[in-house]
């Protein structure tokens, strides 16, 4: 359908690619264009590759849940451009605080996606060590809590004197992901208050995917969410979250500002959760097929593929990416099925850093109790 063409382009949104893949920057995009100069041809291909790979992985994971191999799956279909673009804007020294849908961000930071599956299979509460996985922190399941952790972390960067030194190779910043639903949480407001007050080196990346499970964004906010920034004293920018180049450029600018000691920023990426909230959800009960189709017409991958094809990228590249995506998904499936339940020790270990009599006593009791069955059998 042509309904989502240029005539509907909001004038307040940074967009570089039209929905049919033409490079045609919107007016607010002008100041972000220089950031594209940092991208190599390899980066352009990498954006496409990552979006396709994570969508295939996403579908495979949903299937795994339907087959009883995962307790739950959290789809990211439709939000690939917002996530891939913003993730590539972060430098290696930056820290990333995800919500729980940013699978591809973790993968870009070096996380083995099977670790995400392990958590959703119920064999671990976390799944990875952020320090060994590109500073990609654990998922946070109580909505909005991670916003404060990220602000505190950014305060620590600042106290360490690691932002605003003038050396962009060393200066650090933080990016935190959250959604339109979480934007209603008090913790998000408090994080924006603290961030503005201490001028933290931090980007708040709000993916507005239009739905908080079954509740539309209009119930969360009567004002465009990016405008909330100014109320806190934080610059707010709205970007077309289905435009990977715009997502990259906008995030690159504001992360640069943050690293340079210019304080925090809020980015609202307009996107859409094409799939269900989780595999426990049924979106047909609360949204129309017409709405869904209108967003599928704005698909981030199709748009970007059309753009690359116009640039002369050949069919063989797209075919190779499809093959790589299928291989990655198959590999993830194979390795997930090899994951066994953890030992009982996982219940008791790491509750405290220092010995705790209650936990020690209960662990010893549980071991004796379990051993008693072996003795009975013997």
């Amino acid at each position: 359908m042509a309904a989502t063409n240029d005539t509907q382009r909001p004038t307040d949104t940074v967009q570089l690619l039209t929905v049919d893949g033409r490079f045609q920057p919107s007016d607010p995009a002008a100041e972000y264009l220089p950031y594209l100069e940092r991208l190599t041809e390899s980066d352009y291909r990498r954006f496409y590759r990552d979006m396709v790979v994570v969508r295939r992985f996403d579908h495979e994971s949903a299937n795994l849940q339907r087959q009883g191999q995962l307790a739950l799956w959290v789809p990211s279909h439709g939000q690939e451009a917002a996530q891939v673009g913003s993730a590539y804007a972060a430098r290696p020294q930056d820290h990333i605080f995800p919500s729980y849908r940013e699978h591809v961000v973790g993968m870009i930071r070096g996380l083995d996606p099977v670790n995400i599956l392990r958590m959703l299979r119920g064999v671990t509460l976390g799944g990875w060590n952020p320090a060994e996985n590109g500073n990609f922190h654990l998922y946070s399941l109580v909505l909005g809590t991670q916003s404060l952790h990220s602000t505190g972390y950014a305060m620590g960067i600042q106290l360490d004197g690691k932002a605003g030194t003038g050396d962009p190779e060393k200066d650090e910043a933080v990016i935190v992901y959250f959604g339109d639903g979480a934007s209603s949480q008090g913790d998000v407001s408090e994080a924006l208050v603290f961030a503005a007050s201490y001028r933290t080196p931090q980007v708040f990346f709000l993916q507005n995917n239009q739905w908080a499970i079954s509740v539309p964004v209009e119930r969360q906010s009567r004002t465009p969410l990016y405008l909330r920034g100014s109320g806190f004293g934080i610059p707010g920018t709205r970007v077309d979250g289905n435009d990977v180049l715009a997502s990259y450029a906008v995030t690159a600018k504001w992360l640069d500002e943050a690293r340079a000691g210019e304080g925090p920023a809020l980015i609202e990426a307009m996107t859409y959760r094409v799939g269900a909230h989780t595999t426990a959800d049924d979106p047909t009960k609360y949204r129309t097929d017409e709405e869904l189709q209108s967003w599928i017409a704005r698909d981030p991958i199709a748009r970007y593929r059309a753009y690359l094809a116009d640039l002369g990228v050949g069919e063989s590249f797209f075919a190779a990416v499809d093959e790589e995506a299928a291989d990655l998904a198959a590999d993830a499936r194979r390795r997930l099925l090899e994951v066994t339940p953890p030992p009982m020790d996982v219940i008791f270990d790491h509750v405290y850093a220092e010995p705790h009599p209650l936990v020690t006593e209960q662990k010893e009791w549980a071991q004796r109790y379990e051993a008693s069955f072996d003795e009975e059998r013997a």
Partner: protein
Amino acid sequence: MSDVNQSYPVIDDRPENEDDIVEVHEAELIDEPSTAEDEIVVEDAVVVDDEPEPADITAGFTVNADPDAALGDVPKTEFDGEAAEQIAAEEIAAEQIAAESVAGYAAEAPVEAEPAPEQAAAPVHTPDAPRAPEGPIVSLPLGKAINRGLRDALANDPKVLLMGEDIGPLGGVYRVTEGLHAEFGPQRVLDTPLAESGILGTAIGLAMRGYRPVCEIQFDGFIFPAFDQITTQLSRMRNRHEGTVTMPIVIRVPYGGHIGSIEHHSESPEAYFAHTPGLRVVAPSNSHDAYWMIQEAIASDDPVLFFEPKSRYFVKSEINLTENASPLHSARVARAGTDVTVVAYGAMVSTLLHAADLAAEEGKSLEVIDLRSVSPIDFTPVLDSVRKTGRLVVVQEAAGNASVGSEIAATVAERAFYSLEAPVIRVSGFDTPYPPSKVEGMFLPDADRVLEAVDRSLSY
């Protein structure tokens, strides 16, 4: 006696010895030359001189050098004799005036209150002031003991930070952090926005970065906005990271009643946190423990709720500055006895010691145990004592249902069943909201209620 009561927002249950109370003399009030304005100017000068980082890097942490702007943080508590007389005429209790002034509400209150006596009486802690030579034993009020412990922790470990509402130039509504902002600067002592979840949530991020935040919650009843960050995040953070992060965060909470205050200023919420795996919960009862336990809590790699018995803030007792024999989570026998074991923590320990004096006059010997830690509880001295006396009374200000006292009763019944000569008896606050303070004396356990329970125990 009446002088003391008028000076302090404190203490229905009177300590055994009046010498324990910090005496406040009017002369000291008069002699105190510095006004809030003077203090601020001095502090600003210190801060600007010591500023270790370029202002552009840490702009959010610098104080406003404009003294007028900085004054906005300080309650206007200029002495106004006429206003004070008017207050008296309106029959507002003197201790409540002091409580409000202490609570830092004077700036908002419709009447100007007299400066809190301890503010004037206390030695102002400045970095350059030479300390008089002192031996290993000093006598300090409990609040000052915590202040000294915090100071030593800040001095010994550059990763230690203090965070909270009004803890900077004001020194906290109870002045527990007094002087620390001036000595260590705004990057070590952070006045935060007024948002408790924000304080705890950002402390978690700072701990991830390697800092050791010490968060002050202004009053017990204000901890609940932070409850989610404490229970769903802080307490589990190490566990869900499989041991790859530590959360060395201390949450200081002035808690408990006896101060004649308004709603939400006299709560005892320790059981919520004792019930939460991953947290540690302690409550000192005297200055020596307060000084050492705050440092041990800060040194712990686990999150520690540090409940400060605010009714004891201004009560002096001795500190041995060179020798601390007790680990953080150990209980101690505060007074040996033979007939009935009585157990408490925090402010109620002084109530038990008082009750033990009264009981001794009647020929009954109480063994008083100061738990010091309510999670984990060190049961060894409790069980040893119960095996000796056969009788146990557990005392707390908190409501009794599903409380710390309940846990002690259950555990003693499990582990010392055959030693018990009588049921374990709990003496607690009632299972009601904390009442209007004019009747808090009927709500809070006092020595008489303890002795009534002791008599019941002995009747078996």
